[in-house]
């Protein structure tokens, strides 16, 4: 394994690991705050129990997200020192702002988790709201930095060095809006569906009011997000078409430049033959989606030098996976909304709950696929059109060692986190308990 490949693999693995926790860190506080809000409104103990249960899960996931995020902030320099040395002054700002958002999140999460008995109920709820808001802001700032790598602005290059640096213009880069929208909504959709799936499973015991309320909140958040996501997806597609035509060509498997390009569903891009085979083609679909004009010309990969192509197969497959999963989630959200509209009650049919269980991991997989599209689709560039990934990598030899070390470390953490969350799920309150919330033995032990 070359050092460049090891560095890319380590970065990809670190991001793929962290992003799950980051997405949950954005959305989970919203769920627990909504539940606490209902508790303060209705004084139903179930909502309080639910908020506390979700807070436990959030605490575990936040801790792992915080340390894996710390790793990433260092890895930017450990793996890509030439990138950071060159671009730090331009895109350091969103990371700095993220630092402040993270501070707010950590302070108020401490108050939220440990302060149930220490602060007045409204202050406690407000602490939760601040965690939810700053969690979303953290994500937005980091994605702004990534958007800059896709559409770098706010500087000029003289003699290979950036001059006339304008960090505000860098943050307002053309991809910033569409990417932050798409990612933030994805976080709510993925987390909402993941939590819905778990509570749908626990709702085998159909009348358990605890899981009914949990499912209602999680599905509302996840469902609304899943319905909105295609709109932000459309915005993203058009921004990519404008700013990263090679990425658009790769993710659609578009090799030839053509007017009225078709939309391909499925298919296998063949770089040697310069065509995507076995795809279902919807005539003029791509031109319409990318430019809102069925006759628009879409640049194919042939318009770019061969060594500027990303890996078309990975990008195309990842894109198809993301869209397919997004569609499934949107369809399920519509199904749920229809059921609710018909009966004015939470849909709890056997097949609906089974579908939710099946889709529990769908949002997270879609997020991973989406990031694969974004990151692999930008290759060979680390800064689109400005700096190649191979130019940015550290001169440090033997990078395969830290790659393997961090991979093993993260596998270990993932196993433990899943185990701990399963313990929490297994300690699910039964119906009788939800009425009078008796502490069960393993729930009341909570201290180191």
């Amino acid at each position, binding site marked *: 394994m070359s050092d460049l490949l090891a560095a890319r693999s380590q970065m990809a693995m670190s991001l793929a690991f962290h992003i799950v926790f980051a997405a949950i860190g954005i959305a989970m506080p919203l769920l627990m705050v909504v539940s606490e809000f209902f508790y303060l409104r209705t004084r139903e103990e179930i909502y309080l129990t639910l908020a506390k249960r979700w807070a436990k899960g959030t605490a575990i996931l936040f801790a792992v997200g915080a340390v894996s995020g710390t790793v990433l902030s260092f890895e930017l320099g450990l793996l890509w020192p030439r990138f950071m040395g060159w671009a730090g002054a331009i895109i350091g*700002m969103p990371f700095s702002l993220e630092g402040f958002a993270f501070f707010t999140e950590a302070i108020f999460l401490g108050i939220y988790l440990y302060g149930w008995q220490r602060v007045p109920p409204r202050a406690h709820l407000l602490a939760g709201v601040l965690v939810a808001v700053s969690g979303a802001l953290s994500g937005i700032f980091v994605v702004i930095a990534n958007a800059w790598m896709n559409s770098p602005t706010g500087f000029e290059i003289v003699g290979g060095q950036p001059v006339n640096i304008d960090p505000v213009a860098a943050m307002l880069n053309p991809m910033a809006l569409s990417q932050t929208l798409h990612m933030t909504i994805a976080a709510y959709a993925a987390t909402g569906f993941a939590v819905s799936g778990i509570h749908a499973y626990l709702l085998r015991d159909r009348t358990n009011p605890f899981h009914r309320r949990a499912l209602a909140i999680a599905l509302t958040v996840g469902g609304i997000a899943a319905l909105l996501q295609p709109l932000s997806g459309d915005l993203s597609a058009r921004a990519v078409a404008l700013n990263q035509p090679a990425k658009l060509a790769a993710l659609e498997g578009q090799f030839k430049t053509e007017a009225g390009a078709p939309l391909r569903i499925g298919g296998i891009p063949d770089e040697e033959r310069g065509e995507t085979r076995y795809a279902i083609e919807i005539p003029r679909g791509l031109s319409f989606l990318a430019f809102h004009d069925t006759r628009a010309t879409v640049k194919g990969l042939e318009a770019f030098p061969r060594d500027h192509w990303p890996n078309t197969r990975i990008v195309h497959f990842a894109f198809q996976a993301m869209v397919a999963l997004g569609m499934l989630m949107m369809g399920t959200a519509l199904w749920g909304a229809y059921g609710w509209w018909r009966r004015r009650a939470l849909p709890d049919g056997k097949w609906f709950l089974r579908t939710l269980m099946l889709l529990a991991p769908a949002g997270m997989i879609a997020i991973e696929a989406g990031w694969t599209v974004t990151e692999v689709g930008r290759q060979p560039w680390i800064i689109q059109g400005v700096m190649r990934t191979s130019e940015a990598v550290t001169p440090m030899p033997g990078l395969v060692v830290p790659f393997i070390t961090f991979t093993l470390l993260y596998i270990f953490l993932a196993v433990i986190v899943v185990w701990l969350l399963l313990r929490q799920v297994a300690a699910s309150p039964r119906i009788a308990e939800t009425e009078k919330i008796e502490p069960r033995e393993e729930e009341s032990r909570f201290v180191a």
Partner: protein
Amino acid sequence: MSLELIVAGAMIVSLTFYALLGGADYGGGVWDLLARGPKAKAERALIADAIGPVWEANHVWLILVVVILFTAFPPAFAVIATALHIPLTLLLIGIVLRGSAFTFRTYDAERDSVQQRWSYIFSIASIITPVLLGIILGSIASGQITVENGVVTSGFLRPWLAPFPIAVGFFALALFAFLAAVYLTLETRDFDLQESFRRRALISGTAVGALALTVFLLSGTGAPKVRAGLSASPWALPLHIITALFAITTFWSLWKRAYKLARLCAAAQLTLILWGWALAQFPFIVEPDITISSAAAPPPTLRFLLAALAIGALLLFPSFYYLFRIFKGDTPPTALPETSDPTTSSTLNANADAHQPR
């Protein structure tokens, strides 16, 4: 004062907060490992309760140091991350293991064997990580990281695998352990627990003194520029005298059980040590090839960053104050993450033994 100088100052302030707050959390891990005898369980519970609500927030100071470094002084960040790749990677592994083990211990089964396992990972990582942090700062101060045309020429081992940085590593560990012991005397009303941490503060304080002397002696060859600054500058003598006065007052107040004074003086002592190092190294970020001004980002970035720091400080310090007032008021009762039962926690008393069933 120039923009880059103010930003560099803000970076050292953040590092100071990290040492004072995050450092003490590492020190807590040291005492977790060394907890022995019949009180061991109560001591561990006290440490966990003291750290629990605040350690995530304390940790963010480190992130702030890193983002200020790479936003305001990008070439310095690139050089440090390249030359110190190995100790930084080890530091990260320590941070990951420590942070996750602490949380896993809180939320895993209360069986002794399970708790013990996470305690070991947490406490051992709490010992290794500050040593690495000290090694990293020591190598930056040593003048052994050399750069030509933006390329690190001093290799990946030599700058940090040397007596001076390693001595700084153990110095940092001793300081953090000392700080934690001093803080912990104020975290409980239990006289026996106070006494055991008082004793530990006195012992580790002595270790701090011995290691400070070692570091100073090794700096003659290990970090000549810093040594020159610390012995020849006009501010050197007053600094040493004031630091020594704080050190003596810390010992005296620990002896007299005036713990609040001890906490103040211990914190002042650590602050002066950090600022003494920063002043001695001035104007270099990475001695001898990278200065504050040569590495500084252009003014628009620095202005934006300073504005963010100012607004951030206005929002954060009250939040921090609120957090610490809630959990670190006068000998607070035990803080617990909430169980699903609203009645149990209110019945828990301040005695740490109460929620540590055997």
